[in-house]
């Protein structure tokens, strides 16, 4: 069991290193950074002195060595724009993105999982059809459309909530609702499918035959098994939370990492882009690791692979 977790963790660390290294070179290979960061009309001297100042005149391997040793100590270089540490960008904006994406994620689960369970338990009835039609609508609606619709309804028309910004709890409601509602549609569909599959298994019929009343069949015999794929799916979507936040952050002018990424790319602010890549990759890979670990906890067939029969 411990071996399983250690192997997974080691693999995650290596994956992160490979991904980050790949991006490091991708962002630099065959690119004159000075030319990109300054503008086309800059003099050759200006470009050269820029490159010397930021260390882009060194060989790529030297640059990589400097960057990775720095990164391991928490030094991710400096922004071209304001010469502040790139890591400060993350430190300032990550809490905002986490606030939005966690509120949205919680809403996704709170709406999506019960809706999917109810649809599966009432399979084929009007309840099922209603929930699934709503989910289909939510699934096909792009989040910026829903975001703008919510903004128009609640901020512009009813004037109940602020439309943009992040200074109060009221500011969080519309972005989080946009995020949670669009996400919950997929979760509801996935939960329903997972639950229906489990309800069709012979061990559920056997539980009924052994006298388990309907509520116990659902709660004790079916839900824990259906939870395995659902938790897996939720775990993977944790990795995409920060990425998905980009769109919602843009619609509601939410000052999170998504906005930071867009402005850093527009400004060719290399160190900031690089540190954001590290953050996004860490989330993604961390989520996959989380899924692996949860899988091992939830499904004994994985923990006990190889059999304890001997």
């Amino acid at each position: 069991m411990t071996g399983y977790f250690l192997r997974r963790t080691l693999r995650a660390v290596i994956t992160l290193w490979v991904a980050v290294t790949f991006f490091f070179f991708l962002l630099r290979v065959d690119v004159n950074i000075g030319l990109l960061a300054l503008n086309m009309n800059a003099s050759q001297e200006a470009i050269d002195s820029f490159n010397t100042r930021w260390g882009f005149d060194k060989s790529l391997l030297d640059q990589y060595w400097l960057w990775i040793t720095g990164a391991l100590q928490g030094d991710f270089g400096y922004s071209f724009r304001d010469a502040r540490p790139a890591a400060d960008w993350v430190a300032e904006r990550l809490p905002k993105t986490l606030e939005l994406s966690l509120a949205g994620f919680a809403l996704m689960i709170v709406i999506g999982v019960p809706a999917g369970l109810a649809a599966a338990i009432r399979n084929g009835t009007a309840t099922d059809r209603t929930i699934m039609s709503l989910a289909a609508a939510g699934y096909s609606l792009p989040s910026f459309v829903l975001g703008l619709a919510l903004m128009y309804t609640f901020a512009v028309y009813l004037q109940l909530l602020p439309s943009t910004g992040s200074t109060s709890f009221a500011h969080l409601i519309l972005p989080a609702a946009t995020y949670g509602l669009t996400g919950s549609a997929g979760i509801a569909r996935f939960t329903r499918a997972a639950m229906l599959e489990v309800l069709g298994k012979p061990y559920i019929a056997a539980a009924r035959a052994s006298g388990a009343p309907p509520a116990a069949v659902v709660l004790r015999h079916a839900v824990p098994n259906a939870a395995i794929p659902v938790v897996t799916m939720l775990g993977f979507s944790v990795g995409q939370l920060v990425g998905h936040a980009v769109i919602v952050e843009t619609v509601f002018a939410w000052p999170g990492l998504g906005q930071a990424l867009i402005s850093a790319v527009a400004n060719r602010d290399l160190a900031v882009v690089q540190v954001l890549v590290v953050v996004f990759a860490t989330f993604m890979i961390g989520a996959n690791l989380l899924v692996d670990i949860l899988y091992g906890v939830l499904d004994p067939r994985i923990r006990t692979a190889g059999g304890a029969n001997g």
Partner: protein
Amino acid sequence: MTSGRGGGAAPAPAGVDILHPALELDDLRVANAEGQALLHGVSLQLARGEVLGLVGESGCGKSITGATAMGMLPPGLALRGGNVRIAGESLTAFNETAPANGMRGRHIALIPQDATASLNPTRTIGWHLVDGLRRHRGLDAREAGRASRQLLSEVGLTPPERWARAYPHQLSGGMNQRVAIARALTGNPDILIADEPTTALDVTMQAQVLELLTNLVQSAGLALLFITHDLGVVAQIADRVAVMYCGRIVETAAVAAFFHRPRHPYSEGLLASIPSLDRRQDVAPLPGTVPSPGALPDGCAFHPRCSRPLPVCLGNRPHLNTAGGGLVACHAAMELASA
């Protein structure tokens, strides 16, 4: 294996209370979603201490009969008439998602064909037993744990502590079948329905499971409805046989009488199609195939495949009548009996 059981003309083996059947199936009529009848009035009685083998070719309605007795008709099938009485009380619901007046598990329990698939792969063996024990016997977690180890020993899984902790995928099919039997016993039922419980097992395991079931029936005085299409297994375990064809019982008889002298031409055909070492006869498979529920022949449903049909068989359906200590539904058998 059959020695001392179901012997000759004795109406019932010792300890069998035929006056107070534990399970009574009375004129069961079941139809599918298209309205086609799958059971056309099946009646059977089963007493404690007795093993009734229910046999017939694939699709004749054995499993549906067992499912109706459990009040567990699969979706799409509906009871159109008849009655199931368990210890004198009638079942009121037959939908598999309804709990069948609390009878299931407590008075009547199922032993499935594929025991491994019947166990939740993410739960331990012990969990399954504790689940049933707490529900049916109202035990607390500790008592249920102790009772589950007791049950595991009873079905021959020793040391029980070890197997209680194991998961279904760590056990062989035969061991999981023992677990399924232990699980069926958690509610101290009077009646067990076993639907081909040994079909998926190899010969050695099959013999062990049959022996276990026989011992349970005798020691706990259980009534066992044993569904199979293997007449060899019936000879080993059953006291009585009921033969089904196209949703009807066509013959019931004590086991020894049945193997000595089957009355229904269909029973004869089934017996003749068993490969046998001592009879040195060619295996004679039944000609033709089982008609589908929507296309039953008029008169005796068996007449297109019968070796000696009478003119009356084509237009008139034979009813079950007493013959030689059992019941048989055949015009020709009736003539023989009355002759």
